[in-house]
Structure formats: structure tokens, C-alpha cells
């Protein structure tokens, strides 16, 4: 009827819940109605017998057991429509019966001893002679302070039982109708959930086949809406990162080819021979320089892949941050000098600043930042290293330049791997990504603020090592 799947599951759950509910209601209803019918009948006989017994004690000959009409009178007093009335003695032997027949034997059912003991006895069971289901209510009749007689009413429960059966059948029918109705409802309800899920499933199946340009359409609510949006976003991201990867490959190929072209050209030229030593030295110098550049590129990529796979091992010691910055400045001095750029350390702290970290890796971070600053700064401009204590536990290092800056739209992406604002500039596009991850490995934080045409400020926040003992401090290259 309904296809195997979540829809059928939902309908089935509805069905089970409603079925169990109805079943319990049905059982309770049947028991309650049965109790109601039986109790009413029992009470009817009981109340009549107490009333009649009272009347009999008060007005009918109490003291006249010798009166020939004693039992006839008693039968007339206690008589109740639609019942058989028996007057028993306290041993259960029949003294008089409304049926007119002589009784065959004493009555043994459980209601009689109960009545003989002074209580009201009730018994429901089958008459052995006729197989009819009957209810017997026996009440004791006190004469002279003792239970002398037992008034026993007997009524047939056959039509009550068939009525109860009818009622049960009707209520089962009603319950069945309700169940059918609810099941129909639940099919509709299930569809409202199943349709979007099916739609999302179809689209995601297409995505799995590689079609990332499809999108989930439709305005779904709650979890389903979120699921659709997430899937759409995921597809979009996949497309974008593919693009970045492609760009990277093309730029890295370019990066690799440029030095290789130089090396190949010069090595072939030198192979021809016949050059004076000066020219030969120049050629070899170029080959060495280009090889260094290749090695740099490959190392950068190695670092990156280590960081990616969480295999980067830091050699953590206590390092003097100022020393590292000074060394960094010395390393780039020559490069800056070429472009006429001035590098200056803006030191706002009197004492030495120490951090827990890998000195080489921290130097790599700052070298990368200052290298970028030089790369994107105009000639004869300046670059500032600012170092200041942000709080008791944190130190802030800023690399401030007055270069070309980064536009707002690119600012969010510069830290992504492989991203380059301008592919002509050379490089892998990994530098900032590596720096960022190295800073994070040092439990620090790196932020970039930039304005196009004004300059860029990269700030690195690092936790300060609390110095307890001067002996702890060691040299950064140790």
C-alpha cells in the first residue's frame, strides 16, 4: 500500500500508538460497563431484599411461624419481578420457591454460606441444570436475633451478557473506524515529512555523483530547512575549494617553472662553455639562487602539509620575544634596503618578554609577515614592529606597513590556503595560512586589519611565560 520507507514507518507508529490507546480504552470501557451492569442488578436485588426484609420484620407476622401462610406471605413480600425467589433455611435447604416446584436438594453455591454468616452473598455462575448464566444474591433474614432464613434472588444474566457483547462489538466498531480515520490522517501527515526528505535525498544523490551545481529548492521549515541549507552551502563550498585548488596548482606550476626555466637556461648555456669566469660565476649564482627559491617553495609546502596532518612538532622552550624580533629584522634588512624600506622596532616594554614556544617557528611567522609587508609596500616606505604588553598574560606584536592594503572582500580569504589576491606576485599563497596555524599551535591568535591603499596591520597575540626564575631562560637557538 505504502512504499517501504520513512513514510510507512511514521504511519505504522501512528497506527501502533492509536491502536494501543484504543485497545486500552476498549478494555477499560468493557470492564467498566460490565461492572456497571452487574452492580446495578446486584444492588437492585440487594436493595429490594433489605427493604422487604425490613418491611417483613416490621409489619408481616414476625412471630407467626406456625401460621399456614407464613412462607406464602414471605414469598409475596419478597417477590421481585424477573427473578426467581427462594426462601432457604440457614443450611441452604429450600423452604419455599417462587417457581412452585419442590426443591430437589440444598443449594451449595458460595452466596449461601456467606448469607448464613450474616453477610450479603453474591454468586455469578452457570446453572448446572439449564446451562444459563445467572446471578444469585442472598441476604440473611433475621428472626429473633439469628439468621433463620436466607432470601435468595436468582436472575438470568443471558440478555445482560448479550447486551454487553453488543456494546463491546459496537465500541470495537467505533474504535476500528477511529483507527482507520487516524491512519488516513497519518498518511497525509507522513507525506508532509516524507516529500521534502525525498526531494533532499534526490538532490544529494546527484551531488554524490559529482553534480555540485544542483541546489535544493523549496522553503522547508525547521530541521529540514537547515538540512537543505547546509547541503546547499556544502556544495557551494566544494565548488569554491575546487576552484582554489585549481588556482593553486596553476600558480604553483608557474612558481616551479620560473626558477626551473632559469636553471635550465643557464645550465645549458654553461654547458656550451667558452665563458669567462665572471660570466660563469654569474650563471652559477643564478642557478644557486633559483634552486634556493625552489627549496624554499618545497619546504613551505612540506610545512603546510605537516600542519594539515597535525604532524608539526614544536620544540617548546622559553624564548625571548624581543631577541627573535631583532633577529627577524636583521634577516630582512638586506631585502628591505634594496627597496629603500625602513624597518623599525617600536618597543613599549622596558623588560624582556618571554614566551613558551619554538623560537625557529616563531621567527618563521614573523619573517613571513615582514616578508609580505615588504612585498606589498612601495619603495621608500616604512614598516614598524610594535611590541606591547596587552595584559598580564598576553603580549601583542604588530607588523604595520603602509603598503597597498587588502580590499574588504579579500580580507576574509587571505588566511585561506592557496588564496592569492594577485597571482602574478609569485608565491604559493600558503604563507599566511601557515603562520596562522603556527600561532594557534602556540595558543596565540592572529588578526589582520587592512584598508585598501592605506596599509595593513597584522597583529599576533601570544601568551606570556611567567618568569619565576631567571635560570629558566635560555637562548632562542638553544
Amino acid at each position, binding site marked *: 500500500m505504502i512504499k517501504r520507507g520513512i513514510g510507512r514507518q511514521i504511519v505504522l507508529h*501512528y497506527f501502533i500508538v*492509536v491502536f494501543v490507546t484504543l485497545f486500552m480504552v476498549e478494555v477499560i470501557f468493557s470492564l467498566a*460497563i460490565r461492572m*456497571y*451492569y452487574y452492580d*446495578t*442488578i446486584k444492588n*437492585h436485588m440487594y436493595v429490594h431484599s433489605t427493604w422487604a426484609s*425490613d418491611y417483613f*420484620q416490621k409489619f408481616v407476622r*414476625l*412471630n407467626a*411461624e*406456625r*401460621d*399456614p*401462610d*407464613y*412462607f*406464602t406471605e414471605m*414469598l409475596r413480600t419478597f417477590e421481585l*419481578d*424477573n*427473578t*426467581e425467589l427462594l426462601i432457604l433455611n440457614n443450611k441452604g435447604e429450600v*423452604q*419455599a*420457591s417462587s*417457581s*412452585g*416446584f*419442590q426443591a430437589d436438594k440444598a443449594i451449595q453455591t458460595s452466596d449461601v454460606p456467606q448469607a448464613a454468616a450474616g453477610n450479603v452473598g453474591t454468586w455469578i455462575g452457570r*446453572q448446572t*441444570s*439449564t446451562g*444459563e448464566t*445467572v446471578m444469585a444474591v442472598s441476604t440473611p433474614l*433475621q*428472626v*429473633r*436475633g*439469628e439468621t433463620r432464613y436466607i432470601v435468595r434472588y*436468582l*436472575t*438470568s444474566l*443471558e*440478555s*445482560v451478557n448479550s*447486551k454487553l457483547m*453488543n*456494546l463491546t462489538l*459496537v465500541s470495537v466498531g*467505533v474504535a476500528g*473506524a*477511529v483507527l482507520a*480515520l*487516524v491512519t488516513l*490522517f*497519518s498518511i497525509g*501527515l507522513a507525506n508532509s515529512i516524507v516529500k521534502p526528505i525525498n526531494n533532499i535525498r534526490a538532490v544529494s544523490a546527484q551531488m554524490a555523483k559529482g553534480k555540485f551545481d544542483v541546489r535544493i529548492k523549496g522553503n522547508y521549515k525547521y530541521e529540514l530547512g537547515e538540512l537543505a541549507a547546509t547541503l546547499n552551502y556544502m556544495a557551494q563550498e566544494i565548488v569554491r575549494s575546487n576552484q582554489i585548488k585549481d588556482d593553486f596548482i596553476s600558480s604553483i606550476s608557474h612558481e616551479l617553472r620560473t626558477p626551473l626555466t632559469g636553471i635550465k637556461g643557464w645550465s645549458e648555456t654553461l654547458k656550451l662553455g667558452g665563458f669567462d669566469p665572471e660570466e660563469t660565476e654569474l650563471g652559477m649564482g643564478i642557478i644557486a639562487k633559483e634552486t634556493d627559491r625552489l627549496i624554499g617553495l618545497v619546504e613551505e609546502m612540506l610545512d603546510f602539509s605537516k600542519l594539515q596532518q597535525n604532524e608539526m612538532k614544536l620544540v617548546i622552550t622559553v624564548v625571548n620575544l624581543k631577541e627573535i624580533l631583532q633577529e627577524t629584522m636583521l634577516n630582512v634588512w638586506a631585502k628591505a634596503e634594496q627597496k629603500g624600506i625602513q624597518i623599525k622596532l617600536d618597543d613599549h616594554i622596558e623588560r624582556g618578554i618571554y614566551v613558551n614556544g619554538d623560537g625557529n617557528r616563531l621567527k618563521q611567522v614573523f619573517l613571513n609577515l615582514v616578508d609580505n609587508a615588504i612585498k606589498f609596500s612601495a619603495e621608500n616606505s616604512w614598516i614598524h614592529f610594535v611590541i606591547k604588553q596587552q595584559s598580564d598574560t598576553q603580549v601583542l606584536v604588530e607588523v604595520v606597513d603602509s603598503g597597498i592594503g587588502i580590499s574588504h572582500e579579500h580580507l576574509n580569504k587571505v588566511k585561506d590556503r592557496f588564496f592569492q589576491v594577485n597571482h602574478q606576485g609569485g608565491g604559493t599563497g600558503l604563507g599566511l595560512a601557515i603562520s596562522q596555524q603556527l600561532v594557534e599551535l602556540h595558543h596565540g591568535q592572529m588578526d589582520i586589519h587592512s584598508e585598501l591603499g592605506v596599509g595593513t596591520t597584522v597583529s599576533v597575540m601570544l601568551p606570556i611565560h611567567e618568569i619565576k626564575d631567571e635560570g629558566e631562560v635560555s637562548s632562542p637557538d638553544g
Partner: protein
Amino acid sequence: MMAGKRLTARLAGCLLLIVLSGCSLIKDPKSLMETPQLTSDKESLINVINSEIKGANIIRPRDVSDVSSIRTPDLNNDGVKEAIVFYETPDAAVRIHGLILEHHEDTWVPKVHFDGEGQVLETFEIRDITGDGRPDIIAGFTSGDEDLQKGLAVYTYDGNKVDKVLTLPYNHFLLDDLNNNNLLDITVVNLKRDQNGTVTTYEFDNGSFKEIATIQLDDPIKEYYNTVSGNITPKIKGIILDAAFGTHYAYSHVIAMIDGNLVDLLPSQDSTFKNFPVLSGDVDGDGILEVGRSEKPRGWESFSYDDIPLFSYYQWDEKEKMKFVMQQYMDLSGRFYFNLPKDWWGNVTIDTKSDPNEHLWFTKIDSGEKVAEIRFFSISEWERYKIDWQLLARDNDKVIGFLSYTEAKINKGEKEIKR
């Protein structure tokens, strides 16, 4: 989802209400009660009788010992049950009729109708009185007025016809074997009001009833309020007649069958005098009849006779004449009775300050020491006293308690007179 479910539930509720409230689905349980079916055998018997008597009414005998109207003995001793029923046709010349049916395979076949006497069926017994092994029908009739003479009829049935073998006037009749010859005889008590009474015993012999003994009693009374037959002594059988005179005074005759004659063993009324209609009978269940008397407790001689009734029972004895058997305190309103322990007789009396509706003290005659109390409590009072007192009887608003200072326990049990 939830909304949907709730809506469904409401819809179902409404539907259920409509279905259950409107039509006749739920009925008053009382209207569904039915008289239980009789067994098919009885049912068919009733049907056959009803169609046979054509709208007349089946009647019950006015008899305490058995008020059933339809009886099924084997009347002609052929191994097949017969049914006997009496019915009345109020407008016909003969008012009461009997009907005998025979059981044939699974159905009942009407065999004989026979005429009864009078207007009312007084008693109706099935006993073999003719000594032929076949039960006979002994029926008593009246014209409806209790004071008028009753008529006794004995019918026999041989399988084809009903013979009336005896008709007698009577006031009381007793079926017993007074002369100990293993044949039931019938003893008829007749009373000419305010003149005399006659007791006559008949026995069936050679096809008819013969009078075997008779005695005339000089009883200028209104009625014998109780007659009982049985053993007077372990060997002698007889009857006891309780005769009422005056407003509620009474005395008894003990008449024994001795050597084929009826003998009045206590011709003097004094020894059996009672100021309440005490019933004679086998009070202690030993198979021998006792004569009842009422006695004043010691100390009450100057009080009216009606105040405190102690009922005493005596057996007749050849030597002692009257042998004490037991004594009973009877509440005059019939709320309870109390059998006094046997050793109290002659030793214990009821204190004269006792009020039979409030409080009774039983005290020793010689020392005045209390031996027991009977007291009426309200139901709330009873809650406080019930630890020490034994429950004697209880009615709607009163509890009657018994407190014993000796070994004596409540003694009511089965020792009331058998009737």
C-alpha cells in the same frame, strides 16, 4: 502532528458520545433482568399443566411445612414419576381440582383430573398411608374461614384413576405410627368449640380406614393452638395437644397410645398450666416430646403474671410424672431467647428490678449473687461494651448483649422448639 492527533481524538470522542447517548444502545440494566429458565423438564411440565387447566390458577397449600404447588413423586410405584398439582376454578361448582400427570419419555401427559373439596387447599402431603407401597395424596380443605371445620381427604392413584378413600372433618390431623405396627395411621383432632374435643386414630385395613382408638376430652376451649405427635417415652408414642383458653392462658394434654387405647396421661390441667401459649414439642432434640409450661421466676410472685416469662419443658415419666428438661427465657417481643443452663433450675432467678426491655439480672436465689446479665444497648453504646459483652442479638437500632459471671455461655443455637 499533535494537533492532528488531538483533533482525531476529539472527533472520536464526539462520535462515541453520539453513538452511546442517543439511541437504545445503553439500557437500564434492571430492564435486562430475566427470570432464570426452569429446566426443560420443569418448563414442559408447567406448559402442559397450563394448557391442561385452561387458564385456571395453580394453588399453593397454606402449609408451613411445604408450600410448593407442584410435586413429582412416583404415585403408582411403577418407576415413572407422576406430577400432582392442585388448581382452582373460582366460578365453577367445584372450586378446587387436582391433576395428575405422568412422565412419558420427554414429555408430560395429563392423566386424571379429580375434584377437591371446599374453597381453600390447607395442606397437601404425599405419604403412603394405605400401606400398599404406593404414596397417597392427603389433602386438607377449608371453606376459607379459619374457624370453620376443615375437611380431610385421602386419595389413591393406581395409574388410571383416582379413588377417594377417606373424607373426615378435622381441626388437626397427625400422620404417625402411634401403635407401632409399622403402618402409618392418621390421628384426627376435632374440637367442638367451648364443649369438648375428640381425638380419633384411624388405620387403613382391608380397603378402608378403620377407627382403632378414640378419646374424648372435656375441653371447653376455643382452639388447640399446637398439636404434635411422637414419642412420649422411648417406648410409648402419643400426641401432645396445647389448648388455649381465656385471653392467653393455656394447658396441654399428653395423650399416649397404650395397648391400643388413647390415654390422657395428665388429666389435671394444673401441671401443664401456662400463661403464655408455650409450644410443646421435642425441644432438646432427643426424639422425645416435651410439654411446655410457663413459670414465674422466684421472687416475682407478687407481680403480674405477664411480666417475666420463663418457659420450662418437662418430659412425662411414669414415676416422676413431670421430669424437668430445660428452661428458657423468651423475650416477649420475639427479639431473642436464652436457654438457661440446666444447673440454674431451682437455683437462679431473675432479679425483680429487671426490666425486660432494658436490663435483666440473673441472680442466685440463696445469696443474691449475680451470675449473668442481659442488656439492651444502643448501637453507639455497644461499641464501648462489646469487648466484655457477648452479642446475643441485633436489630435495627438495638444491640442485645450478654455478660456472664460464670461458665455459662450464650445458649440459643438450635434448641428452640421444632415445628
